[in-house]
């Protein structure tokens, strides 16, 4: 019986790089370079470089003073980016607390590097910051971007010569300061192929107007200042609105494919344009919602099949969690009456006063 065979090293390069090493935390992937000469340069061809929370925390060594930590962080990322081979599909960095005073120049350089490497998926998340960190202009040079996730940055200006992210399909902005209605509208107009948009805790948005021909999914979360939303999205299929307490007006134009609307945590809510084909409407609301506008809203959807209400408090009625199918007599009464006198519980264990 001979030596046990090393079948792992026998696997083809691209299986090892793209399918196995890319699934490992960056640290483990890079460590593999010491295994044998065959492994030495493999990690350099991994299509993704993700500097996660763990990486960030490992730089934050208790024996190092803060400036040393920053230096270590910068040096390591620089080093890895330098050694990594040409193509990079996905690049993500997470910056946590307390290393929040990240040097802006570094971020700009790293984005530059990623842009040159043709990055498609870019994620830069600043978890906690006490200072304004502006989005570096080099971001707008990442022409091949398909997916962008930004968190904790401050939006400055869109460069006048910006031609747009023509391949961008998914965009997620979280805690982005100084992102006004105009700037967002301008940006979206320059991303004609955008399919999914998530806006979370962007407090400068007030009267949101989204015009995106290819958008199929829109999610708004914790944008407390938004008062109105107008969507000109003919391909919109899914809309989620969560914790947008000031939202009182929602207008969905041309959304003939809209099937799914989930809404929770609203304040008072106004009317909505007729949306044909909407099949499910799910509402989780809090005490302030007043029912006449709500009925107008529900009445706007002639094809509604399922109306799911969770904890909607009307003036004199508490509706517990239940699903009210349209075919159900009770559902008809729900839609026809303002006071729901004969509301019959169909499913669930809601409390009904």
């Amino acid at each position, binding site marked *: 019986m001979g*030596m*046990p*065979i*090393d*079948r*792992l*090293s*026998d*696997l*083809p390069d691209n*299986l090892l790089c793209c*399918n*196995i*090493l890319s*699934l*490992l*935390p*960056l*640290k*483990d992937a*890079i*460590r*593999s*370079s*010491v*295994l*044998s*000469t065959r*492994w*030495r340069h493999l990690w350099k061809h991994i299509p993704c470089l993700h500097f996660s929370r763990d990486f960030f925390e*490992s730089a934050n*060594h208790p024996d190092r003073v803060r400036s040393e930590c920053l230096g270590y962080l910068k040096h*390591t990322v620089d*080093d*890895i980016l330098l*050694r990594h081979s040409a193509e990079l599909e996905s690049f993500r960095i997470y910056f946590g607390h307390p290393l929040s005073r990240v040097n802006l120049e570094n971020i700009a350089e790293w984005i530059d590097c990623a842009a040159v490497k043709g990055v498609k998926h870019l994620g830069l998340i600043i978890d906690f910051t006490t200072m304004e960190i502006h989005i570096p202009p080099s971001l707008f040079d990442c022409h091949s971007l398909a997916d962008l996730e930004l968190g904790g940055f401050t939006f400055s200006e869109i460069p006048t010569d910006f031609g747009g992210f023509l391949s961008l399909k998914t965009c997620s902005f979280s805690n982005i300061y100084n992102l006004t209605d105009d700037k967002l509208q301008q940006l979206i107009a320059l991303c004609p192929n955008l399919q999914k948009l998530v806006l979370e805790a962007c407090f400068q948005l007030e009267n949101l107007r989204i015009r995106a021909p290819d958008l199929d999914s829109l999610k708004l979360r914790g944008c407390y200042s938004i008062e109105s939303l107008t969507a000109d999205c003919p391909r919109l299929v899914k809309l989620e609105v969560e914790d947008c307490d000031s939202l009182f007006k929602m207008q969905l134009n041309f959304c003939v494919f809209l099937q799914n609307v989930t809404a929770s945590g609203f304040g008072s809510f106004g009317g909505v344009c007729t949306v044909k084909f909407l099949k499910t409407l799910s509402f989780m609301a809090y005490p302030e919602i007043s029912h006449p506008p709500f009925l107008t809203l529900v009445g706007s959807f002639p094809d509604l099949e399922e109306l799911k209400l969770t904890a909607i408090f009307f003036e004199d009625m508490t509706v517990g969690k239940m699903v009210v199918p349209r075919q159900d007599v009770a559902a008809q009464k729900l839609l026809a009456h303002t006071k729901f006198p004969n509301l019959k519980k169909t499913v669930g264990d809601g409390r009904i006063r």
Partner: protein
Amino acid sequence: MAELPNTTMANECKVKLKSKDDKIFEVEYAVAMQSQTLKNALAHTGCTDTALPLHDISSQILAKVIEYCEYHVNAANTISEKDVKTWDEELVKHMDQDTLFRLIVAAKYLEIHNLVDLMCKTIADRIKDKSVEELREIFHVQNDFTPEEEEQVRRETKWAHGE
């Protein structure tokens, strides 16, 4: 180029596969279609009684591949995603390394993408969090660096080895 022109024929067609050790396996057309390689081959030959030879795949491994594909074809619309995932995990949980690697090579050759992904994830899970020494031992990797080379590689990637 003979093709399978309609669904009825496709439904009735049984595909024969011959392993390296000359064992014949018969599978439903839908099961064979899980493999991009077989799909392409059958597009050329049409439904045939001749067994497709798989020169590099042993009967033991081929049986496992077929087991996977048959389950997934049947599970497609009937079993919840969660249960399918559990089944997949059970399949690989105690799989010995030898079978694991033979299976991944077979899956790659047959281009059965979700099987390749499952195998790769399993291998990645077995690599994760292990030291270089442990990995060399578990996977029988021969260290062919000179001491100087190894020292240099460690220096170049010192962040990955720290703490």
